[in-house]
């Protein structure tokens, strides 16, 4: 699945995604949380934490403006929400090259779709990055 953070293009494997929802207007803040954590939402009775992907990946620029979208990653018995700007569509990516030298650990590599560069993310590594942000805060 392809999506955007402002103008940059990213991709996540479709199998890792449970659903995409419109970001809510209000958030319940998570106390003592790292900066990237936007808050928690009530998803049909479940409490799901949402992180701003831009902040998590240390992409320079203003925090992702809402209303955006929240990508819900399937993490077995729980979910992790990623705040993004918008979804572009679904494409298959054949070849993933090495990531940029200073990229976050959550980046699996770079791919090309036509003329456009796409950063491919690793869902497991994203999850681990969030947990690390909590413990090293």
């Amino acid at each position, binding site marked *: 699945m392809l999506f955007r953070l402002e103008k940059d293009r990213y991709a996540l494997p479709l199998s890792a995604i449970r659903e995409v929802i419109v970001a809510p207007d209000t958030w319940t803040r998570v106390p003592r949380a790292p900066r990237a954590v936007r808050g928690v*939402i009530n998803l049909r009775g479940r*409490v799901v934490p949402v992180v701003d992907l831009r902040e998590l990946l240390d992409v320079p620029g203003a925090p992702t403006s809402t209303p955006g979208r929240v990508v819900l990653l399937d993490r077995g018995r729980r979910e992790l929400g990623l705040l993004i700007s918008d979804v572009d569509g679904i494409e298959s990516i054949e070849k993933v090259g090495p990531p940029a030298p200073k990229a976050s650990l959550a980046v699996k590599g770079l791919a090309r779709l036509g003329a456009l560069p796409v950063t491919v993310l690793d869902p497991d590594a994203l999850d681990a990055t969030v947990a690390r942000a909590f413990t090293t805060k």
Partner: protein
Amino acid sequence: MAGASWDTSRYLSLFAGEASEHLEALGKDVVRLEQGATVALVDSMFRHAHSVKGMASSMAFEATAKLAHRLEDLLDTLRADVAKVNQAVADVILQTVDALSAHVKAATQSQPLPDSTALVVRLSELNAGLKGVPPPPVSAPPPPPVPEAAAPPAASPSGVVAVDAAAPPRFALKLKINPASNQPGVRGFLAYKRLTTLGNVFELKPPLDDIKAGRVPQGAVTLELETDQSEESITRTMRTVADVELESIGLVQRAPPPPPPGAEADRVVGQEPARTIRVRTELMDQFLDHAGELLLATARVRQIARGMPEALRPPLDESVDRLHLLVKGLHDKVMQARMTPLALITDRLPRAARDIARRRSRDVELVITGEDIELDRAIVDELADPVLHLLRNAIDHGVEPAEVRKAAGKPPKGKVALSVTRQRDRVVLELSDDGRGIDVERLKVLVVERGLMTPEQVRGLSERETLMLVCLPGLSTATDVTDISGRGVGMDAVKRVVEAVGGSLEIETRAGRGTTFRLAVPLTVAMVNLLLVGVGDEVYGLPIGKVSGVVETARGRLALSQSAPVLQWGQSVLPVHELSSLLEVPAGPASAVASPFVVVDSDEGRVALAVDRLLGQEEVVLKALARPLDLVPGLAGVTILGNGRPVFILDVARLVTA
């Protein structure tokens, strides 16, 4: 008396002599093996190994006994199929015989026993290979598997129940097998056999196969005995069975006239007190999750209904009320189904106490009361380790050796009591010993020596707070403290577990008289009563159990102590913490007139939390925090309010320290 009941040194030379004889004979047998293995030969070897095991274990030479035991197991396998004996097997046996001889020699000279772990493993592997099964763990063998499905009701011996007017009277018996007894399964079987000499046994619960396998929850056995013997004679017979107590006996009311054939099932149902099925705990957790979410969803519907036009309200409200009642009923039933007696964990304590006491050469009596009180299964599971831990501490470090006790004018046998009582919505477990007590002064010194607190801080502590110092992580992991203060290892873990299930820990001690640990835990995990408070735009829940009171006063009128604000609370002065800064969230505009302060009990003692608003009290369904939210210090859980808003529940105990 714990430990060997006789002076083992008296038997040492006898042991050495006889064990050597057995080992010598065993060695000769191994040589004869090479001329051909016969059942008689392997049988003879088995007996030698068995004898050595028994003797070694009587002398408390555990390593020797274990090695001999593995050899015995191997020979038992070979006995069943002597064709499996080959040169390699013979070599390992000979090697083991040599090792055992070395053990006996070392024992005779009071030297430490050689390490034979590798050989023990080798024997297990070899035996498993010969049997064609994976090797068992070198430690304790796994318990027998518990059947997934419900055990069928006990079949009567003949399979046919002839109920006629001439039938002899039937008695209902309730037996209790002492859980500390050796081989409780065999004890139960013995009691059963003894009763069958008097008449016919019916309605045996648990079924005989379960009894034989030792699966007797709480040691309780019920049955009906049809016999011509008098009640007195049954009682007398049961008195001849050690470690099995006849708890009650009574005549069974004669069943109504026998039903026509084919209606047997109905009759059985009528006689059964209750039928049970086994359910995986995981499934029970899901039931609870869903029932909880139904409650939340119902609250949400009620909230929406409030915004409906007045004309629609009455039928809608009525439906929501009805829905709420049904869902609440379902939730209660699910909670009820999760209730498990504490006996699940206390049943193994007598045995553990005996083992610990024996290892430490202490003479200790353990008395358990109230173990049939029920708690949510999740809490019972959590309490298993803390309770065992407290028991170990009580025997290891609380109860003194017999000589010391005698010198102090106490009975030589120490007493450890675990009493379980129900106090409103809490269950209180008290583990007390009559040992030496905790040396409070020494404890204070140690805390300062270790740099965990300043002398001033220690001086300011109440007695209760001082005792809680044994739960300081930096202190309780230091082994040298254990013996000095009479307490220690892992108390921080005990406290953490108890508080994680919403409970509390209290300690009382009297020098030279003993110590009591009091664990108060909720009956159930899922519902929690909250005081909701507002901070800026956020709402947080404080568990009511931790709230001592609320004061409203203007922030500007707070007294200052060392330039930090403090709150006057009765006779004492409490430190004030801004909840917004503790939680790192923006605060709302401070009111010039009056702000609420919530007084809570934290790990640091009593503190006042400054909040912006009080929003009232609510009973909510507590949800556990999933990764990564569980990494946030100071949060106990989360819930969803009727308006759909997620609200975090604060871990008041750790809020200030974390």
